[in-house]
């Protein structure tokens, strides 16, 4: 098991943080990278003649290269966006596939943009996904279900596949070229990096077919008063000043993860998840578990029987345990289980078996205080 809690200053507080699917905590190295950028390297990139601007540009290029390496892409296939949500909106509104097949487990961010794009939507279970354009979450933020991406590719060899990687990239080894996926979106803040920065991978052969997202400075080649041509990708898709410090922070987060190794990250979370599932099963008289019985990401979704999810989360908070409750931005998926809300505990590299033991020890307390037969 990994032992890295000491690298995360916020975890020195007496909290047990089990909400990393919402956002991850940040190690010193990321916090320092952002702070050092502003102290020593801050200048706008592109066309800066002076050395400081060059240093800043080099740092951005370096982060782009690190992100590319993490997911097995080439640097020009990496487009910086504000997060997964912006990436989905970009592709849904600019690529505009006429028909999109989605899984029934999608997060609202990989559902509403497609609804609004005017595409005809089809919904299928994750294992059965086929179509010409498939938009699927790599890992369900609600249930931890892992999408069989290779199988989906095999079933639809010619389909364009868009993967919402918000819960995938932070926790699993990913190689976009090996998987043969066409688009991959993910957020920096869920993978130890800062908020406000995310990544959209677009397969090289699609980059020139894709129109710009935002128009403005830095994304142009030649400009007259009445017309403009576009810069080469990825600059074509990155109008305006990027969140430079956040990009540098994301680069530091990638370094931190690569130093551990994504296979080791996954192994740690798999051990934790197997342990948590086994411990939760011992409470089966007072707890309902949702989602796959095994082979799932570090996400455990449950309800304490006869207790509303918000009440469970709040009683746990009284013991310093941070879990999320509600519909988890996946209201249609929650509704399939016939409950209004669920509690979710999600893990990352800094969690330990003792965090899970502590959570498990407080579940009977929640039940005893708030269980009501008819609720």
């Amino acid at each position: 098991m990994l032992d890295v809690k000491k690298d995360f200053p916020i975890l020195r507080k007496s909290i047990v943080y089990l909400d990393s699917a919402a956002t991850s905590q940040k190690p010193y190295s990321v916090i320092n990278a952002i702070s050092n950028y502003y102290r020593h390297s801050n200048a706008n990139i592109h066309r800066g003649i002076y050395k400081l601007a060059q240093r800043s540009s080099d740092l951005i290029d370096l982060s782009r290269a690190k992100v590319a390496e993490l997911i097995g892409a080439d640097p020009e296939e990496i487009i910086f966006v504000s997060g997964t949500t912006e990436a989905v909106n970009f592709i849904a509104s600019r690529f505009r596939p006429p028909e999109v097949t989605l899984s029934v487990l999608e997060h609202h961010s990989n559902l509403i943009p497609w609804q609004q794009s005017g595409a005809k939507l089809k919904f299928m279970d994750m294992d059965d996904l086929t179509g010409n354009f498939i938009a699927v979450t790599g890992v369900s933020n609600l249930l931890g279900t892992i999408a069989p991406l290779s199988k989906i590719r095999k079933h639809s060899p010619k389909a364009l596949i868009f993967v919402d990687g918000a819960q995938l990239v932070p926790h699993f080894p990913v190689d976009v070229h090996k998987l043969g996926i066409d688009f991959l979106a993910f957020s920096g803040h869920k993978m130890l990096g800062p908020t406000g920065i995310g990544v959209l991978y677009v397969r090289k052969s699609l980059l020139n077919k894709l129109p710009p997202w935002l128009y403005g400075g830095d994304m142009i080649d030649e400009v007259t008063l009445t017309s403009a041509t576009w810069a080469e990708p990825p600059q074509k898709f990155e109008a305006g000043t990027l969140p430079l410090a956040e990009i540098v922070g994301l680069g530091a987060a990638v370094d931190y993860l690569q130093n551990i190794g994504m296979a080791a990250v996954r192994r740690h979370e798999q051990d934790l998840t197997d342990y948590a599932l086994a411990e939760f099963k011992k409470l089966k008289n007072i707890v309902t578990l949702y989602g796959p019985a095994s082979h799932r990401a570090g996400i455990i979704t449950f309800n304490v029987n006869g207790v509303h999810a918000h009440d469970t989360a709040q009683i746990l908070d009284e013991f310093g345990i941070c879990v999320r409750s509600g519909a988890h931005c996946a209201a249609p998926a929650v509704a399939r289980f016939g409950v209004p809300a669920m509690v979710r505990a999600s893990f990352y590299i800094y969690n330990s078996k003792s965090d899970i033991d502590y959570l498990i020890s407080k579940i009977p307390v929640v039940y005893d205080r708030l269980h009501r037969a008819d609720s």
Partner: protein
Amino acid sequence: MTDYTELILDHYRHPRNHGKLTGCLSATAANSSCGDSMTVYFRLKSGKVTDFKWQGTGCAVSQAAASILSEKIIGKKPFSIKPISVTPARASCASLVIKAILNAS
């Protein structure tokens, strides 16, 4: 500091004035973040509440708030009762019953 005071737990376990009225003012309010739903039924005479019942599904806070309000509201104007005081994260739970009354008025 807990929102689960003896008062709230008592009303949650033993809800007062739970039920339905017919031929009166009625409306439902929902809280989309947690799936809670609350329906109120009440009659007014000269602007004051003469009968009040409620039905709903949801968390302890929203259920107890409706029950507590139902005991105080008879003989008063519909908006004269303050919601129970809870931590900010649960304010929308505590005020769900008020939202329902607002929808009916």
